[in-house]
């Protein structure tokens, strides 16, 4: 166990011989002046390179035991590495012991170049083992990207395009694997000794045995890994990679639960709820948002005065620049404070001033907040004079003037552009007739006015 773990240090240690031997090479052939001074350094460097190389090879041997690698590539890397150790050892021997005039010294320079070549090849194959053979290929990278794009296009086949020859595996399940799994589990790079680019290999499983048991999602490691919490180490795809969507997980789950057969025809199950949900692509349900032109976030410094007087200011949702301004904790709020709103005027979307001491004078400042969607003035001191200010709010959807001094004349002054949807005017000076007249002009506005309780 422990030697296996030490083996993991192989990719770390190999950088020492690479660096050190390169240094020796540079010192030997690219430094022209004071050759004699460097001679000893080159000798020592070669020795260090040789020792580090042998150690690396040893660790590499341990690492190869895990069996996660392509064998052909591994063998090549292994023998190249061993040869490299040998040539380095000979180089050091020549440098230290051979007299310059001896015949054998003539082999020094060619041997050095051979060593460098070996170093290059060993390093390259080592890299291929760790990162995959395609890692350094521009073409392969391009192909990979095309394949991913194709996979996502393939996923988008419509439910109406199903032909009798399509199978669930080929047309739905495999494309999911191709787009989200096979970048690590493919023919060249089999992490955990598991490959799932073909059905046979998917069935075969990996290092820890079978990954998929047909009819039994409970015992299928594949499903367990997908459903694990994102932060768990064993979760697949790993954190940071493109994750499976809920619809994709549901589909794979359903497919395994129902036999995991490569032959299952898509057309036979197209009325199934899971398949329908997959096609309906339910994860793309748009989350509610405000229909406003985006603005930049308010300056936090402008929010401090609100905090000081307990005037609640919060984003309407996480990360939204728009603010909900709520005076529930400041019933004493009066017109002297409304100027605070001017600093955050573009951001104010919901303004709740119910039961405060705001009057018509304060409304002038509120009129300068162009993005107010909801305005609650319930039980404030506003009168008909405020209508002019309210009319300036072009985005207003919700207006609450319950319990205010606004009357029928004021209501008729309310210049309703298309935005207003809901008006609440109960307990104000507005009468039933006033509401009826307003409704005749503005049929699209929903008015709540429980007048029957007044009589």
């Amino acid at each position, binding site marked *: 166990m422990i030697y296996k*773990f030490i083996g993991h240090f192989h990719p770390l240690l190999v950088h020492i011989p690479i660096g050190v031997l390169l240094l020796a090479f540079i010192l030997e052939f690219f430094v022209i002046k004071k050759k004699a001074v460097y001679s000893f350094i080159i000798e020592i460097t070669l020795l260090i390179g040789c020792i580090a190389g042998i150690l690396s090879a040893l660790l590499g041997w341990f690492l190869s035991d895990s069996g996660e690698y392509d064998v052909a590539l591994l063998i090549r890397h292994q023998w190249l590495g061993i040869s490299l150790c040998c040539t380095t050892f000979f180089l050091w021997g020549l440098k230290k012991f051979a007299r310059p005039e001896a015949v054998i010294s003539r082999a020094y320079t060619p041997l050095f170049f051979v060593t460098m070549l070996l170093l290059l090849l060993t390093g390259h194959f080592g890299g291929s083992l760790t990162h995959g053979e395609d890692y350094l290929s521009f073409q392969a990278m391009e192909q990979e990207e095309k394949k991913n794009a194709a996979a996502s296009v393939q996923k988008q086949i419509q439910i109406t395009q199903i032909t009798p020859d399509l199978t669930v595996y080929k047309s739905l399940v495999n494309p999911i694997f191709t787009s989200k799994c096979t970048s690590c589990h493919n023919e060249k790079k089999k992490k955990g000794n598991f490959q799932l680019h073909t059905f046979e290999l998917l069935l075969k499983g990996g290092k820890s045995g079978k990954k998929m048991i047909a009819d039994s999602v409970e015992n299928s490691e594949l499903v367990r890994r997908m459903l694990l*919490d994102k932060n768990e*180490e064993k979760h697949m795809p790993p954190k940071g990679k493109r994750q499976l969507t809920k619809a994709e997980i549901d589909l794979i789950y359903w497919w395994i639960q129902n036999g995991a057969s490569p032959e299952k025809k898509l057309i036979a199950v197209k009325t199934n709820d899971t398949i329908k949900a997959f096609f309906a692509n339910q994860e793309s*349900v748009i*989350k*509610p*948002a*405000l229909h406003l032109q985006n603005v930049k976030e308010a300056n936090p410094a402008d929010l401090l005065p609100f905090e000081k007087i*307990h005037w*609640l200011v*919060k*984003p*309407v*949702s*996480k990360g*939204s620049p728009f603010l909900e301004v*709520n005076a*529930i*904790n400041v019933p004493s709020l009066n017109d002297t404070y409304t100027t605070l709103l001017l600093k955050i005027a573009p951001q104010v979307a919901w303004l709740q001033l*119910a039961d405060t001491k705001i009057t018509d004078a304060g409304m002038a400042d509120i009129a300068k907040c162009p993005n107010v969607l909801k305005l*609650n003035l*319930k039980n404030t001191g506003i009168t008909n004079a405020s209508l002019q200010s309210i009319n300036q709010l072009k985005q207003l959807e*919700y207006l*609450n003037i*319950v319990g205010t001094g606004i009357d029928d004349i004021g209501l008729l002054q309310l210049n309703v552009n298309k935005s207003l949807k*809901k008006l*609440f005017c*109960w*307990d104000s000076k507005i009468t039933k007739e006033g509401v009826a007249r307003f409704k005749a002009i503005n049929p699209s506005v929903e008015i*709540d*006015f*429980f007048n029957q*309780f*007044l009589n």
Partner: protein
Amino acid sequence: MNELFDLNYQKKRRDFLRGTVLGLGGIALDSLLGCKQGNSEKLKGGNLEQDINQPLGGPHFVPTAKRVIYLFQNGGPAQMELFDYKPTLYKMHGKEIPESVIGQNRVSGMVSNQYSFPLAMPASSFSPFGANGTYLSELIPHTASIVDDLCIVHSMVTEQINHEPALIFTQTGNQLSGRPTIGSWLSYGLGSMNENLPSFIVMLSKGGDNSQISNAAWSSGFLPSYHQGVQFMPGKDPVLFLNTPDGVDRMDRRRALDFIKNFNQLQNEKFHDPEIESQITQAEMAYKMQLAIPSITDLSDEPQYILDMYGPDVKVPGTFAHNCLMARRLAEKDVRYIQLFHLGWDHHGALASGIRRATKQTDQASAALVKDLKQRGLLDDTLVVWGGEFGRTSFSQGKLTPDGFGRDHHPGCYTIWMAGGGVKPGIVHGLTDDFAHNVVRDKVHVHDFQATLLYLLGIDHEQFIFKSQGRRYRLTDVAGNVIHNLIA
């Protein structure tokens, strides 16, 4: 004393470090080998995994509801007597419930030894109401008058067949008590708007029946304890032990609180126990509530016609009607979650008279609450939920007599309604079979209901997680889908 304690504390720590055979090296190796620190999240003030278990601070996306009033009808209102009109039941009165309908469904121990399951005709008549001609019972005329504002769900399904587990399941997402309730989750996740009132208030109404519910129904579970529901009691003292004792001045109380707070903070710096913070927060909240509560409970500013809306019971503290009016007053003060419990729907026998009593106590006030919220513009962002923990069987429990018959618990389908807060008004969702026994279409599981409720408040139920004792918890546990058909 304190210094001695400090010395002792530090000595222990040093011994521990020295005693660790491998010393710091061992600890370093530990992290190299990828061993995870298990209990670190418990030390809230510690430097490890601090980002876990932080309240949301705000909704994930734009909410349509800011508050919830949940009118919980404990006992299990009979769906076929109130909402789910099934002419077949009248036609087949007295006949055995078909085997194909009852199937392998679980029945409670109370009827499992019954040899005959005769269908019982509903003890009420139905007629159409509202713009869509929705059939509703004569027993709920007031609810019928607001049917165009209601989103009625006929296809609710639960997993529990007994009261307490079913209630706890609805409130916490798990049948066993000990997990946080909906109100606690919301208080924890979204925080309070009104700083002088708790964000989760509970009221039990009297006059139903003698059954009991445990306070696990408003527990905060593993969440910090200041998120648990604060119970309002009927009578002079709505919140127990809140008033300052005779002879103690409010300034004295303030000084005492400040002094205790200092001590608590000293302790908190040392131990970082979240419960110390809870203690500080709760004491402060109680102090603020001393001023805020009387203005909530004093109904003298309510005009007579508003009181009349809620019905004659409204002036009797502790009745459902009174609690409904209180709920509206609390909603006006931006209390996040108001939970009412009405007991008295458990009609195992004498259903005909029992359900008449229960509807008389609840129907008018429930409808009045919706109307009252609506005229004030509050229904727009307040979600009102009306419903129990399960439904009742379409067959009779015990002998089928006109007055004496009863119905047993039935988790397979039941009806709830919602109003406001962004739900679709004037719709009926889901379909049950001709016997109101099984769901035929658009099943809404309790977890789906919870997921939808959170969605209306702007919360993605799958992202709203609290880690406790090494396990991540959600209100919807590992299930639940938002029912988008219920949302406007």
